[in-house]
């Protein structure tokens, strides 16, 4: 088991961190820890947030301390250590690959040409490189349902835009560093935009409002603009 560090995230949160590297085995372990807490939540548990190499438990400090008659931080820390020391089930919980259609038409792929020219690739090669890799969802953050996925082919790595756009349309698929992501709702943002998916990453009407979750594996496949429009209807 990799070494970890546990520290407060405020007085109603606690974080466990396994270094500062993106390692899929560690992320798998974090997902397992999250499932254990969600399967048997302690009184006062509010949220378990998985990120790249860390997991944060948010709790209602007053409720925890009233129920368990001790310091809430000490209580949750002890629970976390217990769960971490359980031998990993190594269930390799292979969730089915989620295939996401993306239209790489230049009206949607706002930065497609810039990326291609700065990487000395054709637009077709950029699309090929982006659609032949399987990505892992490490974290949901920034916006409801925004998946932080990694890692993209190194030939595509681009920094964020120096000047973020004021408005990026919902469904826009972008890259930043080794990451790729999808804007679920219209938002300002600095990622380089390759295309757009007709799928809704976030729908507030649904009981399950978010399409992707940490631990999911994702692959993109290209569709034409006509297919995109047909999908939307």
């Amino acid at each position, binding site marked *: 088991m990799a070494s970890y560090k546990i520290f407060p995230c405020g007085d109603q949160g606690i974080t466990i961190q396994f270094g500062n590297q993106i390692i899929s085995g560690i992320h798998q372990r974090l997902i397992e820890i999250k499932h254990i807490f969600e399967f048997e939540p302690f009184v006062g548990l509010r949220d378990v947030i998985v*990120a790249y190499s860390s997991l944060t438990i948010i709790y209602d400090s*007053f409720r925890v301390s009233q129920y368990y008659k001790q310091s809430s931080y000490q209580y949750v820390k002890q629970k976390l250590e217990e769960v971490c020391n359980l031998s990993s089930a190594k269930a390799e919980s292979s969730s089915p690959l989620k295939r996401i259609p993306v239209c790489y038409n230049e009206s949607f792929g706002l930065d497609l040409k810039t990326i291609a020219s700065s990487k000395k690739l054709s637009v077709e090669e950029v699309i090929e490189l982006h659609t032949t890799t399987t990505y892992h969802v490490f974290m949901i953050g920034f916006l409801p349902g*925004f998946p932080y996925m990694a890692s993209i082919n190194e030939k595509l790595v681009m920094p964020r835009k120096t000047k973020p756009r004021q408005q990026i349309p919902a469904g826009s698929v972008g890259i930043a560093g080794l990451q790729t992501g999808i804007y679920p709702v219209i938002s300002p943002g600095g990622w380089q935009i390759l295309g757009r998916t007709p799928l809704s990453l976030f729908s507030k009407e649904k009981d399950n409002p978010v399409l992707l979750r940490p631990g999911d594996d994702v692959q993109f496949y290209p569709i034409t603009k006509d297919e995109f429009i047909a999908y939307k209807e």
Partner: protein
Amino acid sequence: MSIRVVKAGILDTIQDLGRHGYSSLGINPNGVMDTYAAQLANCLVGNNLNEGLIEFHYPASQLHFSKEALISITGADFTPFVNEMPVPVNCPTVITKDSTLVFKKRKWGARCYLSVSGGFEISPWLKSKATNIKIQAGGFEGRALKKEDVLSFKPGKSFTNAPTNVRALHWSVNTSVMYKERSHISFIPGNEWNLLTEESQQCVISSPFKIDKSSDRMAYTLLGERLSYKPHEELLSSAVTFGTIQGLPDGGLLVLMADHQTTGGYPKIGHVISAHLPKLSQCSAHEEIRLSPASIEDAEKMLISLQQEIKIIQWSCAQKLNEIYA
């Protein structure tokens, strides 16, 4: 039984104590900024602590009551008047039908709360009535209140034996202890506190910071000396929370507030303790604050005593209301 918005304020929303349990999906809790004032407002009129209420900023909305109501106004003092009569703050008040509530002048504080006995008719989204403006969900149509909006409220305490005019009931809560020394804010040092140089650590705990005018429900920008960091590798994003103090690349500080994002990649210098978030939420632009470190043990003790105080107030208010409305 309804309230109509006669004139809109700059940012008045329906909130409760937050939409918890969805941060892992990137859906942040939102909810009131000043949880202390909001809970008191609900206590005073006999509601649950988590009941939805209106959070006002100044200039605030003007509201017309079509029906008699038992209300309370807490938090900042925006000089509330009903039909040209002053309304005391932190005190349950009966408003007769066809009354208009206006807020005349900001005396102190940044946010005030209006609770109506019985609560507003708001259908929850993901188990909460809090407004998420960014994604237009929750609260009243997922947005700030505007002119001609009509908010229905559920029947609360009946008024058969109650005073018939616009009148304050005869008890109130003294909130001066909470809001005195508003500028003294304690924080728990964060995981990246040690990335600050020693001079910068000293600077955080000994120099004042001014709240920038860009500060809002999402974050407070603190203006002060530029802070510097020891050399370090780029950090991976991880969860952040209400009160997290982030160090920005330009050497500035940002305190995340109720509408914060769920994750962030900047160094976490510290976290404002929960017991001090209400008073920080009442600090306005240009006010100065001072930060001092606290232990997790002390932070927990202060939060427990605060919640216990609220429980006692809730119980006492319920007793008083029962005497009147028995």
